């Protein structure tokens, strides 16, 4: 009774690229988000290459409060920064705060989540208690206290911003990783791996990691958004890097000098627009990744 089934190759089967393209067409969020992100990067990297943003994005590089003109396409602010250069440089600075905070959050979150979920027991209880406590402290409040007491207000750099912004950014990742590890741990293939004599760490990285990649990607993007969001909050309250032209600081200065009431609309408009595009693109990407991680959500589309 040994009969092998011949591999069935039907001629009409679409090839892989067409399947990917079809998928992309359905996952519009991911495509649109990535396109917006690409636009921002081209704008800021291109801008940094074309004009000298290391001087023109800083005070006294241009006449003050010029409305947009051929010479200064986005106008200038009250301290004589060229807003075009500020935007080009600001996207990179703000972006790197976010990426740094997101990376720290991801790494810490993955470790904490894995440890809590995989080993369980008292470690898990301690971590859960810690997260419950931290959950009660509004992130902004904790960051304000840290930023205002530990860090000298006048020496804030984008690195301290990233550090402060990452303080709570690991929690979301940790929660997702923990619950994923808990579910995956129950599945048989991990038991199989255990039977075959693999060590604990080996199991985690060999078996669990690939399963979790879409989740991790989504929570990394989430942590980047969180990092940019909380650094923005601190910048608005005057706890940001006073000397750097990040997007948040630009809005802070515009507000500080009542740009709206003085009808210097361009000073507020561009950074707000850029920040909105940043957040919109990241959230679309996040959503797209989420659809990959939880295909069930797709069904309601």
């Amino acid at each position, binding site marked *: 009774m040994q009969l092998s089934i011949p591999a069935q190759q039907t001629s009409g089967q679409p090839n892989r690229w067409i399947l990917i393209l079809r998928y992309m067409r359905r996952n519009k*969020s991911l495509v649109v988000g990535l396109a917006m992100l690409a636009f921002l990067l081209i704008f800021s990297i291109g801008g940094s290459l074309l004009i000298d943003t290391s001087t023109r994005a800083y005070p006294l590089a241009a006449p003050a409060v010029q409305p947009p003109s051929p010479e200064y396409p986005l106008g200038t602010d009250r301290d004589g920064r060229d807003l075009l250069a500020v935007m080009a440089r600001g996207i990179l600075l703000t972006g790197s705060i976010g990426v740094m905070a997101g990376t720290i959050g991801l790494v810490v979150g993955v470790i904490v989540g894995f440890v809590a979920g995989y080993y369980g027991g008292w470690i898990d209880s301690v971590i859960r208690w810690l997260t*419950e*406590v931290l*959950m*009660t*402290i*509004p*992130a*902004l*409040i*904790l960051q*304000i*206290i*840290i930023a*205002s*007491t*530990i860090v*000298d207000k006048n020496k804030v750099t984008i690195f301290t911003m990233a550090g402060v912004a990452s303080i709570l950014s690991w929690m979301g990742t940790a929660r997702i990783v923990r619950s994923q590890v808990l579910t995956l741990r129950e599945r048989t293939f991990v038991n199989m791996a255990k039977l075959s004599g693999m060590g604990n760490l080996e199991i985690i990285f060999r078996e669990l990691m690939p399963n979790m990649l879409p989740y991790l990607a989504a929570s990394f993007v989430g942590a980047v*958004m969180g990092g940019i*969001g*909380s650094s*923005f*909050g601190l910048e*608005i*309250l*005057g*706890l940001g890097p006073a000397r750097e032209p990040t997007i948040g600081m630009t*809005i802070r200065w515009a*507000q500080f000098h009542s740009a*709206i*009431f003085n009808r210097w*609309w361009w000073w*507020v408009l561009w950074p*707000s627009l850029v*920040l*909105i595009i940043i*957040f*919109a693109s*990241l*959230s*679309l990407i996040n*959503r797209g990744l989420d659809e990959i991680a*939880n295909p*069930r*959500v797709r*069904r*309601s*589309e």
Partner: protein
Amino acid sequence: MRLSYVIRRFLFFLLVMWSAATVLFFVPRLSPINPIRERFAEIQRSTGYAPRDMEQLVKAFEAKFGLNKPLIEQYFDYISGLARGDLGYSLMRYPRTVNELIGQALPWTIGLVTVTTLLTFLIGTAIGALAGWPRSPGWVKGMVTPLMVLAAVPPYLLGLVLIYFIAFRAKLLPLSGAYTTTRFNAPELSLEFLLDVGRHAILPALSLIVASVGFWALGMRGMGVTVLGEDYVNFAEHKGLKQGRIFYWYYVRNAILPQVTGLALAFGSIVSAGILVEYLYGFPGIGSLLNAAIGANDFFVIYGIGMITIFAVGFSMMVVDILYPLLDPRIRYDRR
């Protein structure tokens, strides 16, 4: 059964408060920065007033605030002060206490934040429920993506946009404040005053609502889609139930459960968003007070606000946890 659950939850709340207070006590004290000296330095910067006996002054004030005692004693003073609800003195408005300053600001914040949170939760959940329901018209389903993109934008930015277009250009609503100070010297209990406050609160509230409706809509839709895949919804349809009944009793009723838990978890970020929006609109709540305190290096007010917000968040989480079993019968006899 129920009472012991409430008691245990309350004890956990106290534990969280104590842990948070401890964190708030030690974080600043790890720092080399001396709040009193910083305050004088700030005065010096802003007024040019430079007392010759600065160090002595600092010492005197440290003694007054008990900062010269051993750390452990300070800690006990601080915790027992908190237990009595005493947050100490404000540095920027000395001799007014932190309690007084917060007491003035708090009603505004509570009013703004609770109303907007409830509205946001209800509107967002309703939109999400409709968007996840297969029979909803396409435009309802299509609402979620733009709303979600809006939810990614900080409320502060949205507020900025609203201020510019609605208050500044169109002059439809007041630009800032909580009431017209030229009409009312102080808050009073009259219809005109309340209407005035309402007019002032529309924009801050709108910034907060529009910026987070999408969050709840997305969560509800995601959960709704999961619930639609559950056997009990399927069986409900096999039972020949009317769509309306399935929608409410089977779909919404189950999908809303994680939303309620999520509400408890979201209080922290709601407070954070509220603080920034209040500051933007010069709304005389906690946010504006906090901004002033940061500007003036008034650490005691900063810590006090920290403690109050933590208390508010922790308390709200506890209330949600205690009420949750009313929504989900499975929890009643469970752990914790």
